[in-house]
């Protein structure tokens, strides 16, 4: 069991290394992608500086807190898209029959598939997240929490995407829905939860788990709360379970190639 895990990790590591080598073939593009993404994300901070010039407190969030929120949001986005880029394009892999290649390998199908490519600009998101964290204020303890939340939140993001894209085993248009949902999570996650009320707020801590992946980390880092931390980690584990269950359930319906889309 332990060797199996080690071997799986070795393959994932190699696969990411090779993908990175491919991207590094063109260093200018590589670096400009990262830098532009950092600039791109910085614009969110500009937006909040303007907003805080009107009002100095958004339901408990000061500018520093919002910067932390944006930092965490882009870090976990960067983590998810760098290591697991293919989970955001899973539908295409399923519909085009490219899953075949992973099924014939003696490795975990889902893990091998979603780690088979990287997104370079995600490194920009990760770096921006770190910069934002340093602006917020560095402590060792805080940094450990920050790293943990980047990973758990990133995994939640990946799992949701896997679940939604796995629906293409059943429905042919699942990808558009999955992209919309993923996009919505990103959009919402750069605004503090205090501007939402009622049922929306409730949704954000349940079906659309932005609350758990993005808001809880801010609350825990601002004032430590072990219960919230546990909820974050627990929900992350729950989503891993769900993602694997749904993906493998769908895999039984996998039909490879394009037999499904015969037209009259």
């Amino acid at each position, binding site marked *: 069991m332990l060797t199996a895990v080690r071997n799986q990790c070795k393959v994932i590591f190699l*696969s990411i290394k*090779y993908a990175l080598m491919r991207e590094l073939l063109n260093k200018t593009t590589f670096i400009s992608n990262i830098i532009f993404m950092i600039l791109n994300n910085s614009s969110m901070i500009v937006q909040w500086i303007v907003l805080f010039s009107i009002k100095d407190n958004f339901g408990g969030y000061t500018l520093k807190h919002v910067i932390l929120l944006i930092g965490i949001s882009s870090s976990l986005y960067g983590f998810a898209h760098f290591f697991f880029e293919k989970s955001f394009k899973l539908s295409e892999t399923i519909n085009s029959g490219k899953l075949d290649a992973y*099924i014939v390998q003696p490795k975990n199908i889902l893990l091998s598939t979603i780690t088979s490519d990287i997104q370079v600009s995600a490194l920009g998101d990760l770096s921006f997240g770190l910069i934002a964290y340093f602006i917020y204020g560095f402590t060792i303890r805080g940094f450990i929490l920050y790293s943990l939340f980047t990973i758990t939140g990133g995994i939640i993001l990946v799992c949701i995407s896997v679940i939604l894209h796995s629906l293409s085993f059943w429905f042919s248009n699942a990808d558009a829905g999955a992209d919309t949902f993923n996009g919505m999570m990103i959009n919402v996650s750069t605004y503090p939860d205090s501007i939402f009320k009622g049922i929306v707020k409730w949704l954000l801590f349940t079906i659309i788990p932005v609350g758990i992946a993005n808001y809880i980390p801010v609350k825990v880092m601002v004032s430590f709360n072990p219960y919230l931390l546990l909820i974050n980690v627990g929900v992350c584990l729950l989503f891993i379970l769900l993602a694997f269950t749904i993906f493998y359930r769908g895999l039984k319906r996998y039909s490879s190639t394009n037999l499904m889309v015969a037209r*009259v």
Partner: protein
Amino acid sequence: MAVIEVKGLSKTFKVKLKDKGFKGSLKAMVKPKYKTVNAVRDISFTVDKGEIIAFIGPNGAGKSTTIKMMTSILFPDQGSIKILDFDPKKDRKKLSYEIGTVFGQKEQLWTHLTPYDNFKFFGAIYDIPEKAVEKKIDELKMLFELDEFINTPVRNLSLGQRIRCEIVASLIHNPKILFLDEPTIGLDPVVKENIRSLIKRMNKEYKTTIFLTSHDVGDIEKLCKRVIIINNGQIVLDDSMDNLKYHYLNKKIVEAKMKERVNLDDEDGITILKDKGYNLKIEVDTTKRSVADAIKLLNPDNIIDINISNIPLEDIISSIYQNKDQL
């Protein structure tokens, strides 16, 4: 010893029917219509260790579906598959250590890496220790003559070189069975010939069982001792290459160029295929009449030129496709 046992295998696909245009899309959304396609219907066969077997049939006959069920990619609806005592449905991982796959149209290599790095990657996928991989790569490098380009990025290789690398990549883990799906598709005749002889050499060297699909009669003729022909999801022929040839090759084609016009009619054992006066083409059924007899009928003194040949395998196979109902 049988390494592949397939019994009563069936698979149906539900295909969504969609009318053309926007209206059709809407209709399909509200009330989808399905058509059931029997891709594979109750097929059974066994393959012994070390065999090279050709699995052929026209497009859509069920070849790929069968191969995909044997390699765990698809789940069968009915029937059982045993490959080296593994059930592909249940023992995907264990089975995958024992089989290799090359799907001609789907590349599994990283194109920006050299073949060598690619092979190392496959070594990691199959948990082979570093030293063992290097030894294996050396061995296969010799066998498949990769020396010239083993350190050139794959994207700079020719199609023939790539296919050789694809095959080597699928052999890194010493599979007992190799599934080759259209390995020579799109290659020129010289390269095809080269790939075939390499496959043959590999089969001799490692005693690897090879399960091959191809549209290319040359592949089948040169490589395989046994042929399974599948059409409309059913096996229409499962026989040795020799038998197939014997059954169909007892017919000879005689083409003759004559000094004088001959008048010849169809007789028992002789069918006239083409008669242009001085140029004749006849088919002789050697079970009924010897070739010598046929030539006597033509009057040997009058023959300027003569050519006696077998019926091309390609024609044999297509006649089998067409006569499936009679078989």
